[in-house]
C-alpha cells in the first residue's frame, strides 16, 4: 500500500486550507448572490461586527460570564458523573439498584431541565451551572462505566498477588489507572458538550455567550450570531487543545 501519507504538520496545513476554502465559497456565494441577500452574513462583514462587540465590552463580558458556569458545570458534572459511573461499574449491588434510574433519566436532554433549573435555582449562574452539569454528567457517567467494565480483570489478580487487596487498593492500583484512557475520553467529550449546553443554559436570559447570541438572533443580527458561533468554536478548540496536552502527559504509557 502506497497511499498518501500525511504528517501532523501536513494535517494542520491541510485543515487550514479546508477552512480557507470554506470561507472563500461562503464569501463568493454571498457576494455573487448565490444565496438570497440577508440570509447569511459574508465573512468580510463579520470583522466589523466583532470589533463593535469587543469595543462595546460585550464580547469579553459574555465570555467571562459563560466561563463561570461552564467551568463550574463542567467540574461538577464531570466529577459526579465519572464518580457515579465508577461506583456503579465496580459495585454490582449499586449497579443493579441504579439500573432502572439510569435508564429513566438518561434520555432526558439537558434542555428539558431548564424549567426546573429556573424553578429551583433561578435565572442565574447556579441554574445555568445545573443545566451544564447534567449534560456533562451522563457523558462522563457512561465513559467511566464502560472504562471500568473493560478493565483487564487479570490485573486485579496481579495487584492481589502483590498484596493490594480490598476496594480502595484495587481502585488505586488497577481501576483508576486502567480506566484512565476512557475517563479522559469522557472528560474530553464533556468539554465539547459543555459548550453546547452553555447555549441551552443561557437560553432564558442567564448572561453569557449563549444569551448574547440569543439576543442578536432575536434582532436577526446574524453577523453577531456568527461572531459568537465562532467565539464558541474558538473557546472549544482552546479548551480541547489544553486538555489534549494534559491527556498526552497522563497517557504517555500508551505511546
Amino acid at each position, binding site marked *: 500500500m502506497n497511499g498518501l501519507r500525511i504528517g501532523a504538520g501536513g494535517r494542520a496545513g491541510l485543515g487550514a486550507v479546508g477552512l480557507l476554502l470554506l470561507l472563500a465559497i461562503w464569501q463568493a456565494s454571498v457576494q455573487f448572490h448565490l444565496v438570497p441577500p440577508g440570509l447569511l452574513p459574508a465573512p468580510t462583514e463579520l470583522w466589523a461586527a466583532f470589533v463593535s462587540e469587543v469595543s462595546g465590552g460585550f464580547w469579553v463580558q459574555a465570555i467571562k460570564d459563560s466561563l463561570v458556569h461552564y467551568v463550574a458545570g463542567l467540574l461538577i458534572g464531570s466529577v459526579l458523573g465519572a464518580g457515579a459511573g465508577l461506583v456503579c461499574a465496580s459495585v454490582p449491588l449499586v449497579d443493579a439498584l441504579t439500573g432502572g434510574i439510569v435508564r429513566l433519566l438518561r434520555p432526558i436532554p439537558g434542555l428539558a431541565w431548564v424549567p426546573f433549573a429556573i424553578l429551583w435555582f433561578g435565572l442565574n449562574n447556579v441554574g445555568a451551572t445545573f443545566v451544564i452539569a447534567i449534560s456533562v454528567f451522563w457523558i462522563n457517567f457512561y465513559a467511566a462505566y464502560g472504562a471500568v467494565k473493560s478493565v483487564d480483570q487479570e*490485573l486485579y489478580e496481579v495487584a492481589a498477588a502483590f498484596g*493490594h487487596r480490598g476496594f480502595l487498593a484495587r481502585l488505586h*492500583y*488497577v481501576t483508576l*489507572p486502567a480506566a484512565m484512557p476512557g475517563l479522559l475520553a469522557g472528560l474530553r467529550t464533556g468539554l465539547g458538550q459543555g459548550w453546547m449546553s452553555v447555549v441551552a443554559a443561557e437560553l432564558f436570559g442567564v448572561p453569557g455567550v449563549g444569551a448574547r447570541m440569543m439576543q442578536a438572533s432575536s434582532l436577526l443580527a446574524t453577523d453577531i450570531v456568527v461572531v459568537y458561533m465562532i467565539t464558541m468554536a474558538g473557546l472549544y478548540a482552546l479548551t480541547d487543545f489544553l486538555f489534549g496536552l494534559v491527556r498526552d502527559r497522563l497517557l504517555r*504509557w*500508551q505511546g
Partner: protein
Amino acid sequence: MSDMTSLVRVQDAGLSHDGGKNFIFRHVDLDIEEGQFVAVLGPSGVGKSTLLRVIMGLIAPTEGTTTLSTAREQTGSRRSALVFQDARLMPWRTVRGNVELGLEGLGLSRSERRQRAEEALELVKLSAEATRWPRQLSGGQRQRVGVARALTVNPDLLLMDEPFGALDAITRKSLQTELLAIWQKTKKTVLFVTHDIDEALLLADRIIVLAGKPASVRGDLRVGQRPRDPSSPGLRALAGRLRSLIAGEEDPGNTPYWQAAEI
C-alpha cells in the same frame, strides 16, 4: 513429616469452577518444607497454574485446605510472590514502577523502594530499561520484569509459573543459574512450574508430577546431589520416569539407570 518446617500444607485440596461438577484437581496433598525447591511438572491444562493460585490464596479451594505458615511478617517483605506465566505487567507503570508494585504498602521509603527495584532489575539484566514502558519491551524482557517484581519483595514462598518458558536458551540458562544462586544464598522456598523436564532436574530438590482428570499428585520424586548435570545417566533415567508419569502412566518405579533403556 516434620511439622515445624513445613511452610506450605495442602490437604485434600480440590478445585472446581462449576460448583463441584467438574474438578480441575482433587485430593491433592502436598507438604513443602521451608527452603525446599519444588518443581511441578504436568501436561498442559492439567491445573498447575490453578494450583499455584490456590496455594497463594488468590483462589479459595472448593474442597480441602491450604495453609501458608510463615512465622513472621517482616518489614520490607511479603509472605509470597508469584511470577505469572504471562508477564502481566501494568502497562501504565514503567519497568521500575512495575517492579516496585509489591514494595508499595510495605512501609519502605521512596528511595528504599527504588533501590530495591534497581537491584532486582540488575539481577535480570534490565537496568538499562528501568524507565521504559512495558509496550516497549520484548516478550522475554517483560517476563524478566515479572521475575524481578517477585524477587524484590523477598518472599518466604516464591511461586514461579513457567517463568523462563518464553526465553531464549542463553537467557534461560543465565536466569536459571541466577535463580539457583539466589536460592542457595537465601534458602527461599520455591515452587516452580515448568514444562521442561531438564529444567526441573537442574533446579529442584523435589519434583511433583500433576496428572489425570481430575488431576492429582501422580509422582513425588527427590533429586539428589548438586551441582547437577541433566545429561548424567542417573538423571536421564529420572527423566524417563517423569515422562511416563506426566503421560499419566503408572510409575515405572525407581529403576536403576542401567535398566532404564529396557523400559
